[in-house]
């Protein structure tokens, strides 16, 4: 019996150990390395990094840390503008997806079971379809002689084709389009769980449907709203593909800056510094949100 317990414990440790070790080696350690390298400086070699540890002339190990990346990023208005713009674009995109996604999720959750399955599948399907190709689809639609301009010209709304591509408008459009399913899914599961008898009770007590929505439905689905907003906001801040394909040269976003520092300027330490600051921004944001949420729960 004791042997069996021992074997069971060993098995448990093995089952836990494999995924745990994998995540530590391939996820946690890489983030720590990024943090370390953000304190280095570039060097003409492969890899193009000045090692943090080195041996001086007297064989004494030296640790050299440079704060230059951080002072450079913070002192340069370009990087600050990129950070500010990323947050702005992500916030507005999140709000727009929420405004479009909530009524959709509500409608899906309130139709008959048969329709619900079909519509649910229709929300999932774009998620399975290539992100890159869905962003690409808009290049054709928005281009100077594309269908949108053609329709507007024919209708007489405009007299010359609009420059829609490579604008901030195109970036917002691409963001909302790509992230809409991420918003709808958590909202749908929150709304579906809502007990309809609560709304009936509100109606019986003379509450108008619109008021009932704001007083009952909305507060009770706030967790779904929060989950959906985070699922859109966090990846949107670091988005690279959408601003690269749909944005203009002026669309500064942090994901793009990091990409360019890494691939075009080959400045790995600076790219690491940008990554660390982005991460700190996101973690700070999530912590604040969670605190607000838990305070709300306490006060209720």
């Amino acid at each position, binding site marked *: 019996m004791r042997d069996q317990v021992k074997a069971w414990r060993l*098995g448990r440790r093995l089952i836990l150990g494999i995924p745990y070790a994998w995540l530590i080696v*391939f996820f946690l350690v890489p983030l720590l390395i990024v943090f370390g390298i953000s304190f280095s400086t570039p060097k003409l070699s492969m890899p193009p990094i000045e090692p943090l540890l080195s041996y001086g002339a007297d064989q004494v190990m030296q640790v050299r840390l440079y704060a230059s990346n951080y002072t450079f990023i913070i002192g340069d208005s370009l990087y600050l503008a990129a950070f500010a713009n990323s947050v702005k674009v992500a916030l507005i995109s999140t709000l727009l997806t929420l405004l479009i996604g909530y009524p959709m999720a509500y409608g899906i959750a309130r139709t008959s079971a048969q329709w619900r399955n079909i519509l649910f599948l229709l929300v999932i399907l774009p998620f399975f379809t*290539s992100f890159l190709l869905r962003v690409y689809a808009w290049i054709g639609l928005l281009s100077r002689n594309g269908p949108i301009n053609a329709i507007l010209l024919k209708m007489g709304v405009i007299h010359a084709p609009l420059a829609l591509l490579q604008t901030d408008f195109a970036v917002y459009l691409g963001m909302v389009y790509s992230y809409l399913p991420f918003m709808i899914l958590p909202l749908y599961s929150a709304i579906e769980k809502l007990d309809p008898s609560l709304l009936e009770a509100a109606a019986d007590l003379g509450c108008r449907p619109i008021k009932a929505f704001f007083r009952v439905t909305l507060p009770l689905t706030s967790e779904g709203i929060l989950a959906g907003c985070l699922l859109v906001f966090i990846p949107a801040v670091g988005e690279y593909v959408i601003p690269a394909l749909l944005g203009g040269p002026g669309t500064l976003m942090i994901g793009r800056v990091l990409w360019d520092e890494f691939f075009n300027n080959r400045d790995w330490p600076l790219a690491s510094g940008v990554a660390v600051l982005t*991460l700190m921004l996101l973690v700070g944001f999530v912590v604040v949100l969670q605190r607000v949420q838990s305070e709300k729960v306490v006060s209720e």
Partner: protein
Amino acid sequence: MNKRLSPFVLTMLVLGFAFLYVPILMMVIYSFNASRLVTVWDSVHSPTLKWYAELFENSDILDAARLSFRIAAVNATGATILGTLAAFCLVRFGKFRGRALFIALTTAPMVLPEVITGLSMLLLFVALEQVIGWPAGRGALTITIAHMTFCMAYVTVVVQARLSTFDRSLEEAALDLGARPMKVFFLITLPIIAPSVVSGWLLAFILSWDDLVITSFVSGPGSTTLPQLIFSKVRLGVSPDINALATLLVLTVTLVVVGVGLSLQRRERRLSLEAQAAGEPL
């Protein structure tokens, strides 16, 4: 709930789904357009299949597709094993030391911006190569490892949802009857959570097949995946053969997802009928 939807909600549903599907539909339509100027419809020579024919003669695209398929399949299998193990630990192991960190590590890869995941992975591979000489260079292997790491998080979520609504009495009965834990897992637990494992595999396959950003960081010369190839072409503007490629991919994905979805649903119904039949008194 058969209450009629309000006109506002109905309008939003119609417009929302139109918004989601019209761009994809336009891509499909324009893939049959004869004009090289993608956005101008050439009504004289269209519809045509010439871009599809060109696609299958383009060895770059075929090679990239083959590499992407191989990476996606290996990645999905590995990520499914790791993710299922992780989900099992989270649901069944109660409170263990390091649980909070484990939860953080299994969810963070899903939300971390891809540029950061990609950069960190590359720096790890470079450091490993310097210290222990492995992995030598970068290519399909490093891409697969990177994909497995972020895909396993998705598998964990999918399998975890299923495991936590799981009736454990069957497992307990089998254990009481003297079956070994390992046997119970393979004979009882796995068949019951199978739908979520299959969905997880599919999700991991598609995420990998689709990934551009992380791949770009950890790939090496000579290992160009399909998304990388598409991205380099698309950056220069629209090209008609990409429309054809997109159409084929959308069609395949739709068929697979709908097919798997339907067969899982049917299996579920059959199992619940059998369970009902078994539960009825004789």
